[in-house]
């Protein structure tokens, strides 16, 4: 009897050890698989990060020089005769004065041996055609300067700027572009005389577009983008959230709402240029709206953003716990009170995230804006929704197409500004979500 029972215990223990061995054997395999699984994720993240690093290095490497601009230091004699100013109290004379002439005079003063007509023209080409505007502003602000000699940093031509930057960056042959050997000699002299200086490129942030790279800025594009996004936000946020609330809370579940839902999902996948064509055909063609204006751009982009906002808002509304809804209904809250007091506050973080993702998408969108004429060359900084303007991504597109070498760095710099805007918008989204999120 004893024997039998101990034997049976033995077999059961041996069976157990056997079992544990098998589990342990399996365990190693399981852990190996798990490590592999983790490793795949890590590799993907590393790859994504690498791409990001390469992208950023390239853009920043090319673009950072655009934030500095070459100026030529000159002593400018503000001779009233050359300026053609008889009366410094006459604003008309002040604004029409020959500022270019005095700058040319001072250039010739630095290189007195330049005499030929052709040579002179080459010498004048070292200075930007926009240099005189700055001087004009200065004199208009303080007319008593007329007759004095002032130290002036004159904006250099983009070829000079590119030459100086490429010369500084590495010891190899500098990029000369359209500069001939005589101009290079003059530049060498100016450089040795410490007359070439680099200053922060404020023009880049204060000017609109220009054919001259040294005068081209992104202010116009930024303002255009901001106006456009403002219109997009106002339209798509209000319409999108109302639509989402109606579809989630009020709409009966039938074929019509199913049809609407399918179409909203399809719209989210429509290529953006189609929306541009729609804007061109309907808003410009049928309604006769003005082309190239942020108002129209905003409307077209909000059509594109709406599906994203509606879909994410509906998901946010769906994720509100039904128990909260029931609690409010059980208290005798009306449908609208349930929505306004409970559903919306809880769904708002999700809605805002969707909205900002949609807006970030719209901010970076180029194709539909091309179709409605926001690709036009606009020099003036837009001041209203109905001023012709361009947008940041379109500006980048335009500049990347320009032949001047100096536009290469400006393109990258504009990309940096666009990325900075996008990153700050996304940070805003994260911050808002954190702030509004409530726990239950």
């Amino acid at each position, binding site marked *: 009897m004893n024997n039998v029972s101990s034997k049976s215990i033995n077999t059961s223990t041996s069976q157990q050890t056997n079992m544990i061995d098998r589990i342990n054997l399996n365990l190693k395999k399981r852990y190996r698989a798990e490590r592999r699984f983790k490793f795949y994720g890590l590799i993907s993240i590393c790859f994504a990060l690498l791409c990001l690093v390469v992208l950023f290095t390239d853009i920043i490497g090319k673009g950072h020089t655009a934030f500095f601009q070459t100026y030529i230091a000159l002593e400018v004699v503000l001779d009233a005769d050359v300026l053609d100013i008889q009366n410094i109290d006459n604003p008309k004379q002040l604004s029409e004065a020959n500022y270019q002439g005095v700058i040319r005079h001072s250039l010739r003063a630095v290189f007195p041996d330049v005499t030929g007509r052709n040579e002179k023209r080459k010498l004048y080409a070292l200075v930007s055609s926009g240099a005189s505007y700055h001087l004009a502003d200065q004199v208009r602000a303080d007319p008593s300067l007329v007759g004095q000699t002032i130290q002036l940093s004159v904006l250099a031509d983009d070829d000079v700027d590119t030459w100086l930057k490429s010369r500084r960056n590495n010891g190899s042959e500098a990029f000369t572009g359209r500069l001939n050997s005589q101009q290079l000699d003059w530049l060498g002299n100016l450089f040795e005389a410490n007359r070439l200086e680099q200053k922060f490129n404020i023009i880049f942030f204060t000017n609109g577009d220009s054919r001259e790279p040294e005068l081209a800025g992104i202010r116009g594009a930024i303002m255009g983008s901001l106006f456009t996004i403002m219109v997009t936000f106002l339209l798509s946020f209000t319409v999108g959230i109302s639509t989402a609330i109606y579809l989630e809370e009020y709409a009966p579940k039938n074929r019509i709402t199913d049809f609407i839902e399918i179409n909203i999902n399809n719209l989210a996948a429509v290529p953006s240029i189609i929306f541009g064509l729609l804007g061109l055909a309907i808003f410009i063609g049928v309604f006769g709206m003005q082309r190239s204006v942020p108002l129209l751009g905003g409307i077209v982009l909000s059509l594109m953003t709406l599906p994203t906002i509606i879909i994410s808002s509906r998901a946010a509304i769906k994720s509100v716990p039904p*128990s909260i809804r029931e*609690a409010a209904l059980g208290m005798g809250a009306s449908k609208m009170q349930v929505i306004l007091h409970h559903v919306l506050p809880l769904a708002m973080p999700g809605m805002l995230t969707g909205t900002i993702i949609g807006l970030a998408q719209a901010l970076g969108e180029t194709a539909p804006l091309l179709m409605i004429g926001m690709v036009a060359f606009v020099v003036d900084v837009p001041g209203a929704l109905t001023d012709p303007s361009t947008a940041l991504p379109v500006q980048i597109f335009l500049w990347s197409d320009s032949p001047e070498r100096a536009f290469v760095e400006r393109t990258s710099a504009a990309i940096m500004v666009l990325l900075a805007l996008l990153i700050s918008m996304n940070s805003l989204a994260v911050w808002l979500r954190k702030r509004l999120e409530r726990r239950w």
Partner: protein
Amino acid sequence: MDKSIEGIENIGPTIGVPLVDNPKMSMRNVDVFYADKQAIHDVSLDIGKNEVLSMIGPSGCGKSTFLRCLNRMNDTIDICKVTGSFHLEDLDIYHPKMDIVPLRARVGMVFQKPNPFPKSIYDNVAYGPRIHGLSESKTDLDEIVESSLQKAGLWNEVKDRLDEQGTGLSGGQQQRLCIARTIAISPEVILMDEPCSALDPIATSKIENLITELSENYTIAIVTHSMQQAARVSNRTAYFHLGKLVEVNDTEHLFTNPDHPLTEAYITGRFG
């Protein structure tokens, strides 16, 4: 008990005393369908004034469905169809022109899972009076909040932190907060759908004591899975089985001397 008597065809008409004199709520010939499936079969039941009526029965027997019909919470479920007559005193609850907002102010509800709003404790209790416009002034509202929390036995625990989140309380406190929120609008009937199923024994006993206290002023219908709870808190008990009302009797009578063999089988734990 052999299987054969559990079949729906073996449940006859309701045994015991489903109807009372001068009831607070009276329901007659209630049928409830979820799409094609019938969840409640021809139930007639009264709830007396200031009575605690408990409804027991195995899972899926329709007791929660029946309870949710009493303040039309089933309206939110599209496929749910309710027939029969429901009256709160003289008010026809399912009348086509019935406004459910005032109905739910008169028939409050406490749910299975504590579901305070993600707002402060004060705002949770003040929510009902605010949306129904029950308070004239801030001091009025303060009084309502304090008395409701006191009635729910929560005042002493939360009086110093009324502006903290209601969701930060413990489970039992949350459920008492939900009860305080419900009684803040002074309903006549309180429906409770398994109010203690998510709570520990201590919190449960607090809620049970609270139910007994509240029954002095309110009419209470409670659905519960715990027969001990039904025995402890209720005056009358209704036993549901497969969507039919099998037996309604005084609680003591039903638990000590059930009239229907199915009730006996259930309370002695032979199924359910």
